[in-house]
């Protein structure tokens, strides 16, 4: 069941990339997607967690509009700071711990921090300790209120 689901996803991806309807090519696409599922299907949906992983991806889709909004705000802010004659920046480095548990959510959180206003993730340690470089102390404070972490926490609680 899990095997077929992953191969179906891979095959539709292959089909969208190639757009071929020749039967020989389609059969080679089916064979290669089955083979890749056999080799590394665990990376997409891990064994015994099918329902959980599918829920995770569906919940992640709901997070995307919020992320796009934050990215637009971040870019307007960067443009303002780059073009302002006095360059209103005062960089600080903040360290804090996160309560997120799964790897997927930690990666999402770290990349979201990089994409959102004035902050870039420097390092995430093994104990989920984030080191973040912030353009101004105001953004560091807004990071410590943990609005974004709560949004990602909602994804995690399946």
């Amino acid at each position, binding site marked *: 069941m899990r095997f077929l689901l992953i191969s179906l996803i891979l095959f539709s991806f292959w089909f969208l990339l190639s757009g071929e309807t020749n039967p020989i090519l389609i059969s080679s696409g089916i064979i290669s997607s089955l083979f890749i599922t056999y080799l590394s299907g665990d990376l997409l949906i891990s064994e015994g967690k099918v329902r959980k992983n599918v829920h995770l991806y569906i919940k992640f889709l709901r997070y995307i509009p919020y992320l796009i909004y934050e990215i*637009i705000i971040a870019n307007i802010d960067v443009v303002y700071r780059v073009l302002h004659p006095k360059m209103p920046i*005062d960089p600080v480095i903040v360290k804090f711990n996160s309560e997120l548990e799964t790897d997927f959510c930690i990666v999402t959180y770290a990349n979201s921090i990089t994409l959102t206003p004035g902050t*870039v993730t420097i390092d995430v340690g093994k104990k989920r300790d984030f080191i973040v470089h912030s353009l101004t102390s105001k953004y560091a404070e807004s990071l410590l209120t943990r609005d974004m972490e709560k949004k990602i926490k909602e994804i995690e609680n399946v």
Partner: protein
Amino acid sequence: MIELKEIIAGLFIFSGCFFIIVASIGIVRFPDFYTRVHPAGKADTMGQILILTGLIVYEGLSLISIKLFFIICFILIVNPTATHALVKSAYLSGLKPWTRKKEND
């Protein structure tokens, strides 16, 4: 006669170019490595995504626009990760961040 589709696509591509130009200016203007990464990591991502969105609007719904959409998803994952790798290596090699106070001393 210019179609509406072409105008919208042109606007997207133009704003994408604007963001990339601003990112380049930012890389030149900002004082040190850590601050330079900010425009490179954010405004560049936005610029590339806007240009690709413009191309999708121009192309309409076809296999090409789906491929462009995949490229957008790829950029959204890869760009912050690459930025993170750059900054982490700088941090581990001991580069000290620039601050406003040092300038006043």
